[in-house]
């Protein structure tokens, strides 16, 4: 059995027992590592790290693979909670496949972290997302309406994510993203991003829907739509060109 006193992740819980800092981002959010446990999943074995924050009751978590505390060039994926996609398997977005692929990508590396950020937009994020969908149905969605609905607040996600990376004692990261702008967002919060890893969907047993729908080109909700299309994740995955292509890592 793992010795609690030797485990670097558990040591963070003790280090953070009364942590308080100026906080990150406009809301000055400060997070603390407060709980750690093993989490065997159908996507592989992870350690689950629970964070407490000083602003709201949102319990952000990290899925950790391998030894990351004090590590350099640690692959990191930021995933923003999407109840409709992650949980309900919505076809309006590809969040579930993005999450699955994010976890799989972490597992393919020697080590890595997926940060799962618990904020559907802002306070009433999920409700306003449903309203945005209702506008879409009526053919009435526009960039303006979606901005007003607050969908979504990447800046806040990345501020919280940056604090979590610092809390995990990670010295530098390889950010898993297709969006180079996100590197700059993290850098603003003093995260050292040494590299970017493209977020590529590898064909596997879990992303059948994503691939089939992309392949058939029939997936209305997955089409790159008009200006008003909702962007659930800050950086969508792209599908590997050849099915069966080997992972790069």
């Amino acid at each position, binding site marked *: 059995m793992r010795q609690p006193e030797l485990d670097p992740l558990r040591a963070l819980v003790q280090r953070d027992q009364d942590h308080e800092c100026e906080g990150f981002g406009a809301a000055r959010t400060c997070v603390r590592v407060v709980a750690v446990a093993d989490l065997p999943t159908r996507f592989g074995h992870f350690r689950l790290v629970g964070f407490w924050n000083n602003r709201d009751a949102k319990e952000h978590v990290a899925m950790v693979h391998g030894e990351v505390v004090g590590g350099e060039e640690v692959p990191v994926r930021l995933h923003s909670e999407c109840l409709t996609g992650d949980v309900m398997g919505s076809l309006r977005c590809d969040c579930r496949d993005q999450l699955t692929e994010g976890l799989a990508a972490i597992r393919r590396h020697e080590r890595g972290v997926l940060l799962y950020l618990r904020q559907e*937009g*802002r*306070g*009433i994020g999920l*409700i*306003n997302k449903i*309203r945005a969908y*209702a*506008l879409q149905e*009526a053919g*009435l*969605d*526009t960039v*303006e*309406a979606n*901005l*007003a*609905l*607050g969908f979504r*607040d990447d800046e806040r996600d990345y501020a919280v994510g940056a604090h979590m990376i610092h809390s995990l004692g990670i010295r530098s990261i390889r950010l898993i993203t297709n969006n180079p702008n996100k590197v700059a967002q993290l850098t603003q919060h003093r995260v050292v991003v040494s590299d970017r890893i493209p977020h590529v969907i590898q064909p596997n047993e879990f992303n059948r829907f994503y691939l089939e729908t992309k392949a058939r080109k029939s997936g209305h909700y997955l089409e790159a739509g008009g200006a008003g299309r909702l962007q659930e994740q800050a950086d969508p995955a792209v599908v590997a060109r050849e099915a069966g292509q080997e992972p790069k890592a």
Partner: protein
Amino acid sequence: MTRREGSRVLVLGAGVAGLSCARALADAGRPVEVLERARGVGGRCATRRVEGQPVDFGVAFLHGRDPGFLAALAEVPARRLDGWPVAMLGAGRPCQPEAFTPGESRLAFAEGISAFPRHLAAGLPVTLRANAVAVEPEGAALRVRLEGGGAAEAPVVVLALAAEQAHELLGTVPGPPPAVASARALLDQARSQACLALIAVYPPEAQPPAWHCCYPDGSRVLQLAVHDSSKRAAPDATVLVLQAHPRWSREHLDDPAWPERLLEEGGRVVGPWAARPRHQEPHSWRHARHDRSAELAAPLLLGLPGGARLGLCGDRFAPGGGVEAAWRSGRALAHRILQEVP
């Protein structure tokens, strides 16, 4: 003095959102004009003189935490009552629970709440009793038709109205362009809440209560009793403002007996004396506040086919609710107009 430059902005509505937007535009040197349907500025930041004494019969007190908003309040040339309401009674849910969370500043003005919008409006060209009934694109501008036959025109028009009023006015835009239809549908997704409010003046023998505000627990009728005269330096009389719950207000908007019913409940909750004022004045706020589940993140600035812009701001268009949200949404919209419209 700054020379006025750039596209002229016509703001419909002289509530705090409209005034805050117009103020920020004017301070940045933009030509701006405000049209207001009522006989005074301030909207729901409303103060009325009753027997010579100011009475706040809309917003009971101001609260917020945005440094810009608090700075704007600090500039108001009036006697601040910091922390008001201090003495509270009852465990009922406040209209805006965040008003009582840590980090939130609360205050009132001895001269009345309307000191704030009046200060915002100072020096701005505001036309009162100008009721917009239609908005129509006219080339690269928008023409606003007024009740009684007049009209005004500008390349940028801002609707700083209750969501329901903005929805109605957007319905007059011919076409309508997709951006307008979408904004209308957005506004239609949630309704504002109503509030029946009663000013009650009591005879001299009535002992003023020890509390400033009372949020009764367990009443389906009375949401808030404000001991309004406790804001005044030397009140001639004890004045309460009774505010009804949203649902009860909506159901009794057309019930001519609502003032009596509200007073009766006031007597039950506050004490029998409260049911027997020597003078009373009712006011129906049909759109008193949005409900917090209807909150939006930002104001709208719609581009119309001819090139004109139509902005929307108000308390629903910023997080947090209340006067602070109204003020912030107006500022945010002004900021966008300054950035996007030369």
